[in-house]
């Protein structure tokens, strides 16, 4: 079967394995090597792609919910969007959610995803009480932060390389509105942007959209959106109909000028330095989900997202350098998202460290990977790292320099015979 993930690059042929029950899955694992679990394919690159794919998404049963503690037990194929549909009307929300709700719970754990509140709540693994996972020999292990801690640290952020997560118990958080009070701050340069992040740190949710094509002293100008849930008891959350991009745009559609126009429109619409809005959950957390298949605007060759994070002390200088390199290259990025992160956790490969992260989308085209290699050098120089769940091209060297716990992870995989059993295109490329 022909498969790809959200970036539509690469497209590969794989064998897809489905299972009705644990017995069948065990047999699949016993009989094949080079397996990799596949959730909803919303990772951008090649972390869910490989020779033999285990299709987890059909396993989407809700198992239990405890109204008192907010503990929800679901199978790994359940989408976050389904959790919201059932539980927002009852006054519950995800403790941690990424910028799309169309990901599986298994995928959320495997990438140890984070959201706009990382500086307050940390990664997805913080809300995971326990999960069960089928590992190398088909054994099903129940795993929590306490026991066995190594498996927990290797699996959360471990990109599917420790086995197939079957189900998970996660804590939801109480809310009393489907609306968010949003403050938008318009800044004129990177310095102001950093100051705004610090100023609004007390709000649980914050993220900034950067104009990547700004030049010289305007580099780093942004719209920072920060907010928190309202308390008005309005919880009538419903699934919205959505628009969809029906086919791949011709790839010239997204040239420098259209990106420029988009950035300008977005930025130019906001007049005051500080303004307030009332927005709903979908607008605030999932603006891109409103348009189905928006990945098709990049044309049939696909695109990639380049997301890196720099330690706080080096963030300003590093970002300035990187933004300048991008601006000079003239390669448009439709989307550039900047965010301040809190402390790192103990998981071996979780992406977040305390500092600033920038995520940029690029159409796959000639000269792009050369540009990204140059950006890599700056990231490495400032002791930063690349986010695996977005990546499709990083070199082994760059990757290793960013993740000091990689040897522990490798060793753990080897000892538990996971290294040949579970492999993705990405794990082979970066040697994990």
């Amino acid at each position, binding site marked *: 079967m022909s498969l790809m993930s959200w970036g539509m690059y690469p497209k590969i042929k794989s064998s897809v394995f489905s299972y009705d029950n644990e017995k069948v899955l065990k047999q699949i694992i016993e009989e094949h090597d080079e397996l990799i679990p596949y959730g909803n394919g919303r990772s951008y690159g090649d972390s869910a792609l490989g020779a033999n794919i285990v299709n987890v998404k059909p396993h989407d049963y809700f198992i239990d*919910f405890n109204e008192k503690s907010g503990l929800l037990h679901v199978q790994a194929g359940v989408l976050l969007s389904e959790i919201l*549909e059932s539980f927002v009307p009852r006054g519950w929300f995800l403790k941690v959610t990424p910028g799309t709700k169309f990901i599986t719970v298994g995928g959320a754990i495997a990438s140890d995803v984070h959201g706009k509140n990382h500086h307050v709540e940390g990664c997805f693994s913080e809300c995971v009480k326990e999960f069960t996972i089928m590992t190398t020999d088909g054994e099903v292990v129940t795993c929590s932060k306490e026991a066995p801690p190594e498996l927990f640290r290797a699996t959360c952020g471990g990109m599917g390389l420790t086995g197939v997560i079957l189900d998970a118990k996660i804590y939801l958080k109480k809310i009393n509105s489907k609306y968010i009070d949003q403050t938008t701050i318009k800044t004129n340069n990177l310095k102001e942007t950093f100051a705004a992040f610090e100023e609004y740190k007390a709000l649980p949710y914050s993220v900034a959209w950067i104009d990547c094509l700004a030049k010289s002293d305007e580099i780093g100008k942004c719209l920072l959106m920060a907010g928190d849930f309202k308390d008005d008891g309005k919880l009538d959350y419903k699934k919205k109909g959505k628009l969809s991009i029906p086919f791949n745009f011709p790839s010239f559609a997204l040239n420098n000028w259209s990106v420029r126009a988009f950035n300008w429109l977005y930025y130019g619409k906001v007049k005051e330095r500080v303004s307030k809005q009332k927005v709903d959950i979908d607008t605030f957390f999932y603006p891109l989900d409103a348009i189905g298949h928006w990945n098709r605007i990049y044309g049939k060759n696909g695109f990639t997202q380049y997301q890196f994070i720099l330690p706080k002390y080096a963030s300003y200088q590093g970002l300035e350098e990187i933004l300048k390199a991008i601006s000079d290259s003239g390669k448009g990025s439709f989307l550039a998202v900047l965010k301040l992160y809190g402390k790192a956790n103990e998981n071996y490969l979780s992406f977040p460290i305390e500092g600033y992260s920038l995520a940029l989308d690029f159409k796959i085209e000639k000269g792009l990977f050369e540009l990204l290699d140059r950006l890599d050098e700056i990231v490495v120089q400032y002791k930063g790292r690349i986010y695996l769940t977005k990546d499709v091209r990083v070199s082994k060297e760059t990757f290793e320099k960013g993740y000091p716990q990689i040897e522990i992870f490798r060793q753990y995989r080897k000892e538990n015979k996971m290294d040949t059993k579970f492999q993705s295109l990405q794990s082979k490329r970066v040697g994990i």
Partner: protein
Amino acid sequence: MSYVLIIGAKSDIAKATAREYAKHGYDLYLAARNVSELEEFVNDITVRTQRTVKPVELDILNYESHQSFYDQLGEKPLGVISAIGYLGDQDKAQSDFSEAKLIMDSNYTGVVSLFNIIADDFEKRRSGFIVGISSVAGDRGRKSNYIYGSAKAALTAYLSGLRNRLYDSRVHVMTVKPGFVATKMTEGMELPKKLTAQPEEVAEDIYKAQQKNKNVLYTKWMWHWVMLIIKAIPEWKFKGISI
């Protein structure tokens, strides 16, 4: 709110439809053979929606059991949806009549037996809805699946007659004609992506169309046009085409 009865509840389309109705506040009777296999699914809907979901055993080929099956439902449902179907093996059905008969009975005879009972009750009550899942395969016989297609054609005709009969009693009958749907039935077949629906899309379509009292629903919608074209091909030409 009250119960909707879903027949053939283990079908992927039926499961998605069950979730859709529960989401909109309906309680459910889920009828299937070996219904104990639905235990985890019943629990799934309960956790998702806090609705009451009752599994009930039903073999559509066991005609004698249909009356007692319906009688045992304490509170009678406000509507019924049947997703029962059996694609079967066309080649086998051509030479082995027992296969052909199984296809006809599963898709047609069995459903008629049960719907007759339910239609009488709804007619007396002067309320209710009946939804039958037929297929675009019933719109025109093709060599690749005409035994199945003919059973679905019979079901389509039955449903249109029933709609006509129950019109005065304000009981609404809807015929659903899916094109390709990615389910157990079609697993392993190479289906054209653009024309293939996910069970969830079909379920949403069924719910919306039923609420609006539509008569015939093609899903995905473009199948309506695809079938118009296929039906418009003159027979002398059609008989030579390989589809």
